[in-house]
């Protein structure tokens, strides 16, 4: 890999968040100059929101690399905080207790998913929809339907700088190392490229599924901890705790990450994706537009992004052909 190559890849990755930031910054300077968009506090908050989406997106990616679409990730994250919050409050376990318990519970719940998948052997998407309904009920029953309450406590250090950055860095590195340099990571990629061939050359897929879910559980546990720390208080009703919303906000980050995969490593790609979405959401609000416009913006951006990156080859082909034709014409003359 030459320096030029690296520079070109970095440029192709960073162009997206930078472009979004510049566009919104310019618009906001014109239409709503009093807004704080672009100052340090606001950027910090955007990064923190990006980190939460990126964590959930990474947990989803663990499985999506092998086409296991799991719709229960969001609700596992929420259910975990409901199970953990009364324990942490009762025994006064502090922030670290919250983090560790979240990870443990998430890993257990994710292993249930993996176990059911290996047992029933139907697509994960289908199982996760059944589980979604079961967890929804559990959320109303656990802790007497009170949801998670951590507000006003000292448990929330992982929702703020600097700890959230340290935590995110550790998880990002973990994810990067495991997926790039371990045998498990190779196997995941092999299974992702061609399931049948990977199985034939001796990849133990069930074992790989379980390991993927353990990794997914760890990351999701961190996400649950960050989510609970940031919000402090999560309601039990699925209408209000937004577990599907969490998934749907993370999806764009996953897709952007998967498409940026060719220029950079997947961790960085996902974070860039999540950052783009967070920038856009904050930018729309800073412009003074209704919040629902955020969704239109995110949808349109993802449309545009995916259409462009998927069809890049076609555009390049087209311009190359035009150039060739032009040259041929010139030679004739």
């Amino acid at each position, binding site marked *: 890999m030459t320096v030029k190559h690296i520079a070109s890849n970095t440029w192709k990755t960073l162009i997206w968040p930078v472009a979004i930031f510049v566009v919104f910054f310019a618009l906001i300077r014109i239409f709503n100059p009093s807004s704080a968009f672009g100052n340090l506090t606001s950027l910090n908050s955007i990064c923190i929101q990006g980190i939460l989406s990126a964590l959930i997106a990474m947990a989803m990616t663990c499985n999506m690399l092998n086409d296991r679409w799991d719709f229960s990730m969001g609700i596992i994250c929420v259910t975990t905080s409901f199970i953990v919050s009364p324990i942490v409050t009762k025994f006064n376990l502090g922030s670290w207790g919250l983090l560790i318990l979240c990870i443990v519970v998430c890993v257990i719940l994710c292993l249930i998913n993996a176990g059911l998948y290996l047992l029933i052997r139907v697509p994960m998407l289908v199982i996760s929809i059944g589980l979604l309904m079961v967890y929804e009920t559990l959320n109303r029953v656990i802790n007497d339907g009170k949801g998670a309450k951590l507000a006003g406590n000292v448990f929330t250090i992982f929702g703020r700088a600097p700890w959230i950055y340290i935590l995110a860095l550790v998880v990002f590195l973990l994810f990067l190392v495991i997926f790039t340099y371990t045998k498990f990571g190779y196997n995941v990629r092999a299974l992702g490229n061609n399931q049948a061939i990977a199985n034939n050359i001796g990849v133990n897929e069930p074992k790989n599924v379980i390991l993927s879910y353990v990794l997914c559980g760890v990351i999701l546990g961190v996400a649950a901890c960050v989510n609970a720390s940031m919000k*402090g208080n999560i309601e039990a009703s699925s209408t209000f705790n937004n577990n599907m919303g969490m998934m749907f906000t993370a999806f764009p980050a996953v897709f952007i990450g998967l498409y940026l995969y060719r220029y950079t490593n997947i961790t960085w790609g996902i974070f860039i994706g999540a950052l783009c979405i967070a920038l856009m959401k904050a930018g729309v609000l800073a412009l003074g537009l*209704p*919040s629902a416009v955020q969704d239109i913006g995110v949808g349109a951006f993802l449309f545009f992004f995916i259409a462009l990156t998927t069809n890049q080859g076609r555009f390049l082909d087209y311009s190359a052909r035009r150039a060739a034709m032009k040259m041929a014409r010139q030679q004739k003359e």
Partner: protein
Amino acid sequence: MKKLIALITVVAMCVGILAACGGGGTAPAGSGSGAAPAPSADGKLKVGIILYDDSCQWAKDIVASVKVLADELGVEIETAIGGTDPSVTKEDVQNFAAAGYNGILNLHPGTIMPELVDICEQYGMYIATSNDPISTNPNSGYDEIKDNPYFAGEVWEDESKTATEIAEDMIAKGAKKVALHGFPEGLASQMDQRLIAARAAFENADGVEIVAEGLDFDKAGAAKNIVDQHPEVDAIFSSVETVSTVYQPLNDAGLAEKVILNCYDPSEGTLEAMQDGTINYVVSGTCADSMIAFILLYNAMTGNRMTNDDGSSPSIQMSYLISKSPEEYEEARALCSDEHPPFTYEELKPFIGADASLADLTAFAQKFSLEDLKTRFGQ
């Protein structure tokens, strides 16, 4: 063979559907020809309560308060979640009707009441609404239903007045740059009216500017964005419960002291949030409305429907408890919560039965306030 099965399916579905259609699908409104409600095995009356959500403190207060009356009167109650989708509310009413319920207490009327009253009429079931105002909502179809004998009446809050009062108090406290927070408009007229009134109050005041409107289904995310993108804000008017949404972002940003914030409906941690000064107003007391609405419903179910002089259904307006200090809030919660319903059965007993007068009930209900609570419970 598959083709045969597929064909049989289609035929079976059609037959089933036609049978269902013949089975009363075209029952005309007003005929009351549907199945009469069957009291449960032990002859008890049954009432279904439809809520947005059954797990929050707001719902717990309401269900517990109504249950006090229901237990005394020998009525069975069950809740259903109407979500925020009117077609779910309609399904809830249909299912309760089919299950042989005698009455519905609807806290989520929105604009679907004419439909619901139609269903009730078919089944001979009564319906009352509480909290969410329908008579002041031009889209609710109130005129169509107000004379219907199966509509037992509404008990409502003047949301505009409450919201205006809070907004004006915020302005009086020096709020210059304000933000609105809550669900997007269109979910419930109750929340819409709060936002509309507050917006009007802020816009009419001199030198007050609305810098952001964070109205999103992701209420916590919206709050975080308001705080982080507009740190200059010095008051946030929210149409929802704010302990679980705005509290944490405000404290994280260190703005809790500076920003004036209100909160609708109690929750765990509200008192602490008032004590540390993050939340400055709490609106509570909705369970009182539901108890009065339950009385209207019970009277209708037992054949003593209360009406105005012109025969139309009653519409009783009550007042929220607005707490502006932790002490006030503590008093309000001590006297009006799931653990201590705002009225006792003994107090409401005179308003039950054939001799009860609507005027007396209205007068009693409209007296409801913190002072009234203190006098009645001798504190």
